[in-house]
């Protein structure tokens, strides 16, 4: 027996090693047993939970004054005014100060967020599913690998670069080519009135939707591709044996087989689109306080509103502006959380490539 491994005698007392040596020995035993890893691991694992709780608590505390001032009408109002900043005295409502005439409403922000994400999904879903089918069923192995690389590049592209592309390249094309053509040729039906009208400057709803679709496509396409690859061969061969063409097989057998997974990835893509900040801020036209009158009009989303106004919010000495931004952040968080929880219940993550499938960059 070496001196570093103490012999613990049941009777205790004299004959035991001194405390420090026992403690060190216990520590080393703990490291050997994996106890040290267990405890540091537990400490580490609690940190995300603590961070989450922290974020929620801060948002609720910071947003409380604005909620007390506006109440639930905040979510149905379309005002956006910092009020008379140079007034001599602030107003007081429900015990909280605000600049006279200040009023904020979240409705245009919510509408803008949902509208841009909807446009992104309408474009992205058929395109992504079609791409995934083409990759798996039709492309030779090498080309499929190359296209997969493209998808990864698109997924990893910083959103600010996509925003730059939208502002400098896509926006002018939408303004000069796409929008006038569509607006001129759309039939004069009330339902399609959103496609007609002033064609704007390239900053607006359509460009924002296009930019978002570029970010959503890799998520849906890559997940769908991985899911379709895993559809077992038997049902597909059975369909062919029954005389279905491969298009029919794809539509009637393969896609329904992975339907839940595709829906899950669509919801994940939706979560990404809802939280996207900087790319939309660069192309939306930043029109606070109103709804876009047609597809090409300028608008604002919740995330873009926060990024454009947060740094100057402290000029409002009453703290109202900062509090409103917390409320907007909370609304955004609730919307994206609901969509993400929906996604995780549906999709089984089988992705083999290192795609950042998550929300909001």
């Amino acid at each position, binding site marked *: 027996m070496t001196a570093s491994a103490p012999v613990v005698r049941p009777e205790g007392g004299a004959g035991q090693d001194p405390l420090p040596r026992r403690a060190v020995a216990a520590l080393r035993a703990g490291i*050997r047993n*994996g106890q040290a890893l267990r405890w540091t691991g537990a400490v580490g*694992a609690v940190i995300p939970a603590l961070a989450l709780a922290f974020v929620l608590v801060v948002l609720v505390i910071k947003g409380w004054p604005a909620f007390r001032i506006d109440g639930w009408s905040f979510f149905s109002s379309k005002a956006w005014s910092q009020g008379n900043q140079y007034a001599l005295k602030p107003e007081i409502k429900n015990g909280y100060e605000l600049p006279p005439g200040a009023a904020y409403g979240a409705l245009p922000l919510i509408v803008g967020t949902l509208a841009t994400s909807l446009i992104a999904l309408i474009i992205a879903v058929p395109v992504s599913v079609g791409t995934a089918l083409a990759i798996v069923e039709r492309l030779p192995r090498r080309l499929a690998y190359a296209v997969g690389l493209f998808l990864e590049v698109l997924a990893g592209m910083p959103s600010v670069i996509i925003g730059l592309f939208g502002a400098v390249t896509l926006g002018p094309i939408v303004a000069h080519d796409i929008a006038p053509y569509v607006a001129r040729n759309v039939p004069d039906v009330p339902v399609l009135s959103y496609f007609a009208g002033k064609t704007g400057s390239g900053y607006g709803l359509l460009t924002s939707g296009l930019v978002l679709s570029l970010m959503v496509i890799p998520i849906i396409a890559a997940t769908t591709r991985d899911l379709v690859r895993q559809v077992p061969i038997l049902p597909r061969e059975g369909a062919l044996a029954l005389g279905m063409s491969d298009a029919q097989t794809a539509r009637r057998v393969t896609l329904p087989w992975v339907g839940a997974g595709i829906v899950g990835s669509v919801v994940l893509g939706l979560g990404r689109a809802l939280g996207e900040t900087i790319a939309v801020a660069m192309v939306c036209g930043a029109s606070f306080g109103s709804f876009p009158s047609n597809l090409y009009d300028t608008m604002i989303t919740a995330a873009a509103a*926060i990024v454009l106004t947060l740094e100057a919010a402290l000029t409002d000495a009453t703290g109202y502006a900062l509090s409103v931004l917390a409320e907007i952040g909370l609304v955004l968080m609730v919307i994206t959380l609901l969509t993400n929880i929906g996604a995780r219940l549906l999709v089984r993550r089988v992705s083999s490539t290192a*795609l950042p499938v998550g929300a909001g960059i």
Partner: protein
Amino acid sequence: MAAHRQTAGSLGQIPSVPIRRRVGNALFWGACFLALLLVVGPTLWLIITTIGKALPHFHWTAVSSDTVGAGTAGGLLNAILGTLVLTVGVLIVSGTISILTGLYLSEFSRGRSRPLLRGAYEVLAGIPSIVLGYVGYVVLVVQFHWGYGLLPAVLVLSVITIPYIAKATESSLAQVPSSYREGAEALGISQGWALRKIVIKSAIPGIITGMLVALAIAVGETAPLLFTAGWSTTNPSFALTHSPLGFLTYAVWEFSPSNSPINSANQLSYDAGLILLVFVLLLILIGRLIAARSRRYAE
């Protein structure tokens, strides 16, 4: 009766494929190829414009000198170094916490705690980064009087990237065959030793892949960094607080043609985009190499 085209064959009358079905087939796959083009095309276009706007007027001063003024002169060295420093900080902080989280969830947690803790970091993944930027600004920068600096920026970026590394760690640990652990126990190896020397070692490729994802995200983030790192035209000083640092995505956003009329600033914006693109390509390449290498050594 659908039109048939007669095909001769030694087996006699083989019912041939109706034209309608052939056309339908062709249309379907045509649509799928169109979709493929609609994905590959804009991606190529995006990559080409990112490279094409920057490369023709690229000067080496862009990577060797600091920015002057609002992009009126100089380069991006301060931004490049700032991004690098932030990345290293994020890898250290987020990497440690996430690996420990993944490890605990995969190897140690039992019963109720596992779905709760896992749910916590999955919910964390769903928070838009601007909201985290808001919290970082309002609490760390303003309330705690830390000002812009390395510490608030790294903390916020870490919170954003923890879910990715933790998920990667957890799933790659789960993929280590239980025969490894059982064999170690059968040989009398203590759990700690087995974990450290055998299980974690096998999971390292997956963990590194997760860290590469986190790197890509940290490098590409803009909104939260605007409110925690600020901006500086001087090189990063490693001071934790009261020391704003530059980062590449700021240059892309702030010096872009829609925000700045100065030509040299616009050029810096394109250059920053190019540098970021190169970085992302590098990360993807490394990820593919690691995946290929680990496949070769897999069971």
